[in-house]
């Protein structure tokens, strides 16, 4: 469809989540913004192939994901970024949890295989359905479910291998983390 004002607004409104996806995937803020920019240019250059009424965020995420994939093959991601450089790219630190906890989480996330990491982010953070995530990644719904489950299991093992020491009574945990559960 042609680039209408409203479509342009919708694309712009997707930028914050595209950035979050790109940073979550790459672990590098500067590279993430380059990825987002390239995604926007591709999207606008190919806007005629976007079907009106279809899922715009999913379309944009697909472009970004494929760009990241091809970029990844060209140059291996910088390993040192797993050690916390990511945190420096943020304007503010996450408001919840300690800085150390955040860096541990980021490092664990970076240890996941790429397939699992992207599936977990799409479903667990971006809020896509399994069906949308499968379309974005070009695989079956069952494959996405399996990748998300394996990602969660691996993160548990990496972060909470001695988990029982980290947790108190159920009531306390619920009070701390709230009731949200994906």
């Amino acid at each position, binding site marked *: 469809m042609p680039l209408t004002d409203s479509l342009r607004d919708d694309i712009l409104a997707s930028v914050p989540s595209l950035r979050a996806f790109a940073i979550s995937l790459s672990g590098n803020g500067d590279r993430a913004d380059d990825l987002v920019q390239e995604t926007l240019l591709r999207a606008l250059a190919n806007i005629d192939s976007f079907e009106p009424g279809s899922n715009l965020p999913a379309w944009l995420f697909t472009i970004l994901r494929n760009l990241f994939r091809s970029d990844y093959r060209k140059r291996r991601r910088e390993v040192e970024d797993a050690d916390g450089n990511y945190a420096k790219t943020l304007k*503010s630190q996450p408001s919840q949890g300690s800085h150390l906890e955040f860096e541990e*989480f980021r490092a664990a996330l970076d240890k996941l295989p790429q397939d699992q990491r992207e599936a977990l982010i799409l479903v667990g953070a971006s809020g896509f359905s399994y069906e949308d995530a499968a379309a974005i990644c070009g695989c079956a719904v069952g494959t996405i479910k399996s990748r998300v489950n394996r990602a969660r299991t691996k993160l548990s093992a990496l972060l909470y291998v001695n988990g029982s020491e980290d947790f108190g009574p*159920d009531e306390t*945990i619920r009070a701390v983390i709230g009731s949200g559960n994906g």
Partner: protein
Amino acid sequence: MNDEKPAGKPAKPGRLNAEIQSRIGHQLRAMYDDVVRQGVPDRFAELIRKLDAPEGELAAKKDGRD
């Protein structure tokens, strides 16, 4: 919110797993939403505005003209 670890008795294994998963989901969203809350950086708002142009110009800009 606080991030002190409560000193209580260990939870049951099954429930513990559910709690860990809930906590992982929470951390993942906190990381992600922190970026989302940064909004749209100027460079992207500017980019989209500039690209309000015929396709020929779009291609020219994509080729590196700034």
